[in-house]
């Protein structure tokens, strides 16, 4: 079999497109989950801090912390997990701050997104990339 330069290039491009295809599908799942939390509003970037390790050796227990001054609720989403929702914190009148931390499972290297609902009804978001060496969630 013999390829011309043009055919080889076309094949290569096709391969790249095919490899990129699953990404938008996943992204829309996360977008749907975020839209369900915000009621369709588009969150602004910033105003919430998400603390997560850059590299997590064990995906079964990844420490994360959220801090969003003025928030009534903060939801955390994982883009690469079988189920996108991770945890939702709602702060009550006795809360001393808008900070909370926990440990989560991450199936693979992925972006973790935190969306905060503010007292005035607006939404803020941030994301962090976590590299996972050994994935959680079993298999």
């Amino acid at each position, binding site marked *: 079999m013999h390829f011309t330069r043009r055919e080889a290039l076309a094949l290569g491009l096709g391969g790249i497109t095919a490899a990129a295809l699953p990404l938008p599908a996943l992204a829309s799942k996360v977008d749907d989950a975020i839209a369900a939390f915000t009621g369709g509003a588009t969150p602004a970037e910033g105003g919430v801090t998400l603390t997560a390790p850059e590299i997590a050796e064990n995906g079964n227990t990844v420490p994360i912390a959220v801090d969003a001054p003025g928030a009534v609720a903060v939801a955390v989403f994982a883009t690469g997990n079988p189920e996108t*929702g991770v945890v939702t914190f709602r702060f009550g009148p006795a809360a001393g701050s808008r900070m909370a931390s926990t440990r989560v499972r991450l199936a693979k290297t992925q972006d973790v997104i935190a969306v905060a609902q503010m007292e005035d009804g607006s939404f803020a978001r941030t994301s962090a990339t976590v590299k996972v060496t050994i994935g959680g969630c079993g298999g």
Partner: protein
Amino acid sequence: MASNVKPRVKVPKSASAGEVVTIKTLISHPMESGQRKDSAGQPIPRQIINRFTCDFNGQNALDVTLEPAVSTNPYFEFDVRVDAAGEFHFTWYDDDGSIYEERKSITLA
């Protein structure tokens, strides 16, 4: 009811009025995600704690919705503002309907 479920909570013994105290909670629970399969290839049914709340003197401080992505032995750390002496009431809700509770009191220094 999952076996050996034991809540553990760390609360300061006393605080000054208006102080913000940090609370750490841990409960031993397998948090079976529903994603794993057993040795016969059958999916293991999901059984997790799906909600955790912390109240202080009847006022809610934190209400958490947990998904299967929360790790085994769910751990939480958060802050509560203490204006008066009183009692913390922690509640964990299991998928199977079980409720695990823990109470801790705090005095004013």
